[in-house]
């Protein structure tokens, strides 16, 4: 069921190719991976519906092949070859475990959909107390302070865009990367270190934030700042490189302009 690939040294299913490479019957060195991918893409084009199973299997095989090949191509990797299989195994085991877990949660999700549907057929009564009921309840607001009301408001509206106090006022129709570079080179050397969120916290439009990001990439390319992201989706740490020039060395027009 897996994709069939065609290479100078082997024609057949991709998983068989992987087996042959692993059992040293085919040298990965002689297998152009591009042709493996081409063959798969060609086959993919012929599918009427996308079979995710086959697709992900192929990705697994392709990534293992790429890894094997890169090891083979890199110098000084002779001794690693012993562990190759083991490493491949570990990765596959982890992936297998994850795939299985995901399948279990997908099955659970189907169950949830069913439960939700069944439960939605029954509607609870929420009318509450008849209004003509006399309630001698103690004051419900007892002990509640104005600050707590304010905090509750913030909790309740946490999902909404936070109203920002516009201390720093930029009203521009066109935001340019070079402007942002100028601005950042004005701020960063003094600040030393900042996170991307801090640098963009005061901005309200998406385009301004994107431009700020592009400016940081530009500064990074010029070796004037270092960027570091601790973890996936984490905040970007920006640090000014000691001794980097603060003057904007490039004239206007070097950077792209973006319509706001």
């Amino acid at each position, binding site marked *: 069921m897996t994709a069939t690939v065609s290479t100078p040294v082997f024609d057949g299913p991709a998983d068989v190719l992987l087996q042959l490479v692993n059992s040293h019957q085919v040298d990965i060195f002689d297998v152009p991976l591009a042709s493996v991918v081409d063959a798969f893409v060609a086959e993919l084009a012929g599918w009427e519906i996308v079979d995710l199973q086959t697709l992900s299997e192929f990705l697994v095989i392709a990534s293992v092949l790429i890894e094997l090949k890169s090891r083979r191509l890199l110098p000084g990797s002779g001794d690693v070859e012993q562990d190759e299989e083991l490493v491949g195994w570990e990765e596959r085991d982890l992936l297998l475990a994850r795939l299985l877990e995901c399948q279990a949660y997908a099955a659970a999700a189907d169950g949830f959909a069913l439960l939700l549907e069944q439960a939605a057929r029954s*509607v*609870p*009564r*929420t*009318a*509450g*107390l*008849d*209004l003509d*009921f*006399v*309630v*001698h*309840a*103690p*004051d*419900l*607001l*007892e002990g*509640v*302070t*104005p*600050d*707590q*009301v*304010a*905090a*509750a*408001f*913030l*909790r*309740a*509206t946490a*999902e*909404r865009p*936070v*109203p920002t*106090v516009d*201390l*720093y*006022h930029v009203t521009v129709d066109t935001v340019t990367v070079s402007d942002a570079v*100028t*601005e950042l080179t*004005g*701020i960063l050397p*003094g*600040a030393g270190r*900042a996170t991307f969120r*801090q*640098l963009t*916290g*005061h901005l309200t439009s998406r385009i301004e934030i994107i431009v700020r990001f592009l400016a940081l990439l530009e500064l990074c390319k010029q070796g004037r700042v270092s960027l570091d992201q601790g973890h996936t989706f984490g905040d970007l740490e920006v640090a000014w490189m000691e001794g980097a020039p603060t003057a904007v060395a490039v004239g206007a027009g070097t950077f792209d302009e973006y319509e706001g």
Partner: protein
Amino acid sequence: MALSPEARAIEAVLIVAVEPVPAGLLAELLELPVELIDPICDELAESCRLEGRGFGVVRIAGGFRIQTSPDLAPYVERFANVGVSSRLSAAALETLAIVAYKQPVSRAQISALRGVNVDGVVRLLEHRGYIAAVGRAAGPGQAVLYATTDAFLERLGLDRIEQLPPVEDLLPGPEALVELEEQMRPAGDG
């Protein structure tokens, strides 16, 4: 004796209704002539009496509704006192806070902010006198608008609603951020 299918359907509708349901609307839902609704509701009310249910079906201004049997009022009151008072819960307090800061505001607007239906909570807050209907929105639908009451201010020990802490002050944001923002103000900014 089992209820007729029509009586069951009406009972189910009255169970979920917050306001009295007009006979005309019930007729429409059941696809029956409106004259038949009264007898069906009578059947329902009668079966509640016969079986000694904890509630009854009554006709009041504008339609039919379910209400607890009068002799059970002591339990209901006790529940209202115990159950509800332990629970001007996060949900109720948040709804009250939204009214306080955004008044006048409609139920739909509060719902949109909180992401859940707030009819029950608004009723509770209104019933307790913390908020009151103060008018209707201009747009289509003319939604009822709510505002906080004097009783609310009194309980919080405030003179005027403006004495509530400004929410901007409470925005999460370490001094550092403010400082940084100041630093970021480019010198020659015109």
